[in-house]
């Protein structure tokens, strides 16, 4: 198809498809009248049974925790894939291309970056650890955590790892998060008889230590997301930020 015929044919098809979808959505309950029963049943049962005040986290990590397990590994697979793809470039570039030397981070950058790492890490911990109480949780916290990891490297405050080492460290961080979630899945299977069954002491709703396995899932996901997002960003940033081993 030429771009023009394609645009025309595509527009007609999308108009028809969109029209059919519009017909379908008129069959839904009017906006604002969620009919249930799933969400209402969860809202009725889960807070008491699990001592979690944040229903969304309770669903994500407990009632429908298995979905989250799958989702974490989608992240894992995408990060592995993106890393492998972006790395291929370095392999094939070989020795002929001159490598831009990495500028030393300026004093200001190091100070500001270094000063920011601690508060960002605190934010990461806060958002992740309160996932079962208030909005936020492992995923949102994990992205913040990735920011902290990158800031730390940008500021050059950490041990001067070679870039291979840095990437490996991030890969391991990601895998450790994934492994922690898996350990939770298998541990609960062994201990409680069903995968991801929440049989830990539940505590009192609203406390930091409550809701059984939900905060553990949050932490695992937080670590994995932090490692994974930081790894992808670092692979994209490559030598803007990190030293090549050669």
């Amino acid at each position, binding site marked *: 198809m030429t771009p023009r015929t394609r645009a025309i044919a595509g527009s007609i098809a999308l108009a028809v498809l969109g029209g059919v979808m519009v017909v379908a959505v008129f069959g839904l309950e009017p906006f*604002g009248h969620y009919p249930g029963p799933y969400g209402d049943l969860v809202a009725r049962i889960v807070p008491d049974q699990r001592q979690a005040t*944040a229903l969304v986290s309770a669903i994500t990590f407990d009632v429908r925790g298995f979905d989250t397990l799958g989702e974490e590994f989608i992240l894992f697979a995408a990060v592995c894939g993106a890393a492998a793809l972006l790395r291929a470039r370095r392999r094939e570039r070989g020795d002929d291309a001159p490598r831009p030397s990495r500028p030393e981070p300026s004093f200001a950058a190091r100070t500001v970056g270094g000063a920011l790492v601690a508060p960002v890490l605190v934010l990461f911990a806060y958002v992740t650890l309160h996932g079962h109480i208030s*909005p936020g949780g492992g995923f949102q916290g994990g*992205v913040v955590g990735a920011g902290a990891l990158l800031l730390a490297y940008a500021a050059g405050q950490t041990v001067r790892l070679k870039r291979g080492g840095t990437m490996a460290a991030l890969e391991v961080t990601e895998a450790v998060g994934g492994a922690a979630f898996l350990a939770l899945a298998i541990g609960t299977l062994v201990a409680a008889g069903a995968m991801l069954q929440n049989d830990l002491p539940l505590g009192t709703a609203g406390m930091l230590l409550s809701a059984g396995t939900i905060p553990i899932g949050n932490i695992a996901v937080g670590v994995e997301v932090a490692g994974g997002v930081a790894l*992808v960003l670092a692979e*994209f*940033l490559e030598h803007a930020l990190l030293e090549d081993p050669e």
Partner: protein
Amino acid sequence: MTALQVVCLLAVAVLGTAVVLTRDPLRQAAVTGIFGLGLAALFVALQAPDVALSMMVVGGIVVPVLVLLAMAKIREND
């Protein structure tokens, strides 16, 4: 349906269209960031603070940054 929801919905529809019609990827990165924040605002209006927070970090920060980095890579390879 509250007025805030109507405004947010219309804004999201307009911003989404703007993202598609912005053919220059660098400008598009900025527009898509705003689109992400618009979605986050809509989700707050729909009583979904958790989703809004995710959308804010993903749509407002991670995706635009990834787009910019991808463009930087492409420039660098040229």
